[in-house]
């Protein structure tokens, strides 16, 4: 087991190095094929790691049990260990990461950014995959921080080099803002980790979880605030979200997919993995504020979507709202809320990944992502893509029966019945506001469908060369669609994993 985990950590990294070692002339298709094979292997490995052994999709009763643990000293002088393992919290996220990277590589077989240099793009995607899986499996604060940072630089390059080819200055600015803000957050987070180390004398998350840093004020509180702010930049929580719309809007399709589908999850995962178990008392102190900011994010993100004219920006802002739900779920500190946050993490990754794929497809076909320039009546011009977009919008706005619903429902349920240590009235108010946020979410998605898919086809004639859903797109998106429906009708598939968290 642990060999597999080490394998899926090392394989993408080594494969990326090997890809760079190959001559640049190997061609885009070959590079993408290579990336698909490698990420396919990683996906297979992560699926092997999934706890199948108690039957089909079964789960083990002792949820805290770590699987595939590797624990060796790394920097003995600082007490840093190379400790990786997976459990039921990280496993679905790892599978999601492997799946999305695999689909992105597959997508690159046919559709690549116009800038070219696919070889490097694929290599960077693999590095991102290794970093993200490393973050999700790290059981040591320093290792967590390291992997958290490893992800940044490749993403920065992806936005900076392969971003929007019409706006070089804009994509550079977006990339810089992204990297600077997230690095700032990571720096604060590292300070928090050091404070934790000072209090507890260890960086090991497992040991810290078993013997948490208690106390709701003073140094634990400072550590909790620093870690929370650091992770909140990544989530991103209002008002630290300002990097997100630009980064998503300017990034290439695969970049947007990974950014929204995977990278944002690092922040919320960190909160669940580190903040809650390691600093329980301090987290209780800051939880109401976290919940407040999350609720503001829900409302502000949705309102901002209502005024967007760019389809990619709109989807990016919708992520702010959805991640606000996840933040609210975490801050309830209740079983339902935490499960909701975990579930919404996965659902958001799948649905927003699909949405960004669709937005990328629309952008590629019209050479712009501006709604006004694209025009209306997509149903007439690209009926299948239009239908899929409608499907994805309905899923994203939380239609029951699709994946987006359960996470938000559980979050609201958690807010209705938060942990006993938290002020219930505050959470009730926040729940009502968040509930209104779901109406706003519906409003902007319907506005998107109305302004993009519907409309009089006579006024917006079809572009001559625009083809509807191509085969590679169908292959790439089908798993996402299938998972959206599967998780929507059978949420237990994932909820079982978190039996008694």
């Amino acid at each position: 087991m642990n060999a597999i985990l080490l394998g899926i950590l090392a394989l993408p990294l080594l494969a990326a190095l090997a890809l760079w070692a190959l001559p640049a002339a190997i061609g885009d298709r070959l590079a993408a094929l290579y990336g698909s094979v490698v990420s396919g292997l990683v996906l297979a490995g992560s699926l092997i790691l999934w706890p199948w052994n108690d039957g089909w999709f079964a789960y083990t009763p002792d949820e805290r049990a770590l699987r595939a643990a590797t624990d060796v000293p790394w920097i003995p002088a600082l007490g840093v260990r190379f400790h990786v393992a997976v459990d039921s919290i990280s496993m679905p996220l790892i599978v999601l990461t492997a799946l999305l990277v695999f689909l992105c590589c597959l997508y690159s077989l046919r559709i690549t950014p116009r800038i070219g240099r696919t070889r490097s793009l694929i290599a960077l995607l693999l590095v991102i995959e290794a970093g993200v899986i490393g973050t999700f499996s790290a059981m040591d604060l320093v290792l967590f921080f390291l992997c958290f940072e490893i992800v940044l630089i490749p993403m920065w390059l992806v936005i900076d080099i392969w971003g929007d080819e019409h706006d070089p200055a804009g994509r550079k600015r977006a990339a810089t803002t992204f990297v600077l803000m997230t690095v700032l957050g990571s720096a604060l987070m590292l300070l928090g980790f050091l404070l934790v180390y000072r209090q507890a004398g260890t960086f090991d998350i497992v040991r810290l979880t078993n013997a948490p840093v208690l106390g709701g004020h003073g140094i634990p509180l400072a550590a909790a605030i620093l870690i929370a702010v650091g992770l909140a930049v990544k989530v991103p929580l209002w008002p630290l979200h300002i990097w997100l719309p630009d980064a998503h809007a300017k990034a290439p399709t695969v970049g947007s997919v990974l950014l929204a589908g995977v990278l944002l999850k690092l922040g919320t995962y960190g909160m669940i993995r580190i903040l809650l178990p390691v600093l329980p008392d301090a987290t209780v102190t800051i939880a109401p504020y976290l919940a407040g900011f999350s609720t503001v994010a829900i409302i502000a993100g949705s309102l901002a979507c209502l005024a967007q004219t760019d389809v990619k920006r709109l989807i990016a802002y919708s992520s702010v709202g959805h991640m606000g739900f996840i933040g609210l779920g975490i801050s309830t500190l209740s079983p339902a809320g935490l499960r909701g946050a975990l579930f919404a993490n996965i659902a958001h990754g799948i649905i927003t990944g699909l949405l960004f794929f669709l937005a990328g497809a629309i952008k590629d076909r019209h050479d712009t992502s501006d709604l006004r320039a694209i025009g209306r009546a997509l149903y007439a011009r690209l009926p299948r893509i239009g239908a899929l977009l409608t499907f994805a919008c309905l899923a994203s706005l939380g239609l029951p029966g699709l994946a987006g619903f359960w996470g938000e429902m559980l979050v609201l349920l958690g807010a209705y019945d938060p942990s006993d240590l938290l002020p219930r009235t505050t959470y009730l108010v926040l729940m009502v506001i968040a509930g209104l946020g779901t109406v706003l979410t519906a409003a902007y998605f319907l506005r998107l469908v109305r302004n993009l898919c519907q409309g009089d086809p006579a006024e917006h004639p079809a572009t001559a060369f625009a083809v509807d859903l191509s085969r590679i797109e169908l292959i790439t998106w089908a798993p996402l669609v299938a998972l959206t429906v599967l998780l929507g009708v059978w949420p237990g598939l994932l909820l079982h994993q978190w039996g008694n968290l």
Partner: protein
Amino acid sequence: MIATAWRVLGVGFSLLVVLTAGLLAGAEPGRSSFLNSSIDGLTLGFAVRTDDLTVLLLAVVGVVATCVQVYSLGYLHERPASYHALVALFTAAMVTVVVADSLFLLLIGWEVMGACSYLLIGHYWERRDARSGAVKAFLMTRLGDVGFLFGIFVLGVGAGTFRISELDPAELSSGVLTTGTLLLLVGVVGKSAQVPLQTWLPDAMPGPSPVSALIHAATMVAAGVFLIARLYDLFAASATTLTVLAIVASVTMLFAALCAMAAVEVKRVLAWSTVSQLAIMFAGLSLGTSDGRHAALFHLVTHAAFKGLLFLCAGVLLHQIGSAAFVVLRRYTRRGRLRKALPVTFATMTVGLAALAGVPGFAGFFSKDTVVEAAWHHAQDGSGLGWVVLVSVCLTAALTAFYCLRLWLWVFFRTPALAGGIGAFEDDDPMADLDEPDTSKLRDAPWVMLSPLVLLAIASVVLGYADGVHLNWVVGLVTTVLVLLGALPAYSLWSRGADPRPVVLEREFGVDPLYHRLFAVPARWLARLTVAGDRDVIGAYVRATGRTGTLVSQGFRRMQTGNVQTYLTAAVVGVVAIAVLAGVIGS
């Protein structure tokens, strides 16, 4: 090919529903649950049950869906594949709602119905009114659904279970019960288009007429009635909720009937009358007695038949003429052609309108009288609520008769006063006398469309006797008199060729513009404010941070004078300062 497959599938599925209802009729009530997962003692999962209510609703849904699917074969020519698929999905969702024993399963069906409704209203997405109507319908029902979801939370957490069959009013505290049912009521109000969330239903009419018949008349909007009937123990145990429900229902039935009196399009009249009739069902439910529940469900069934029929008739008008607006229809009527060219439609629509108006002998008469009778009994028990319901239902009966007769006369008959001359509705249309329609090609619809009409017309009569006739002669007499009282003014106005439409009624009490000004406009402003705030406040902080960094670095660059001695001076000063500092700290 694909379209044919979906057509077959759609009709087949509806027939399957009917078959299921037939098989389940008389069977033992049963329950089962599946795909459960538990969180903190609360079980989230799916559960289904079958009982009389389920069978009843399954039958209604199945029959109306079959009629609509068959009717659509002839009616719909554009994009039939997606249409039939969505109608089938809608039917499945409605079946889910009906059989659900888990509140979450019910919610899934409930909202998928809403989504299907949204997509089907927007079926003609080339048309602006269809687009905006679809969005409005989804958003308003969604707003109600948020309350519904919270109601589920309150009841589920309060009772420790999300299974409907395990919710026992005796085990719930009265606060939880009242809050929970009131919140559920919000969802019901949204779904069934009751005041104050009523404005979406009339605007949903640009959708295909069969869809209006199925979703916006017979089944989906009646889901609210079904829900209250399903959770009747809980609602009946909470007096506050019942009072609120009674007030909402009374206000809605009068409000909607008044709006219907001034509407000038067949489907809009029917839409408002749907709202009004639904309110009558809620009025029956709000009595809190088993008589009331029975009356409401009876009315639900008959209403499904005659309102489905009426919408399908309106569909025939739309299909054969191209419009269901009074002004257009009048042009055909002036020549006296409409009645003769569309004899089946005319006959079935007459039956439907008679049932709606409550003409004695038709189904609507019996079901409405059951409601009145239940209210009368309740009022006699000393309940003020009973009186309110009684009075408002009676008033509504009169108003209903008015608009039914008005619709019937103005659409199908020449005005004697003007003898085919200028009618009341031509004032609305400046093109009226320029355009003389060619009536020679006007035919009745194909039989694939007419056969459902006939079936439903028969049902609109027969269903009244299905429950066994136990007529309270006094009540029957009173309502008949009220119907006549309502019908007479309509007749006299028509015979004089006048159709007075007070502005306040024609504008439907100005609720829609008010909502627009109260919610849509502020939301748009807030959206702009948020974007501006992101750009000019939060973004400004980020940009200012960057600029500060640049400025500071410029300051530091200025220190780079190139003069070695300056550097040295600084170094020596630094050494001295550090030495002094070390001395101070050391001592």
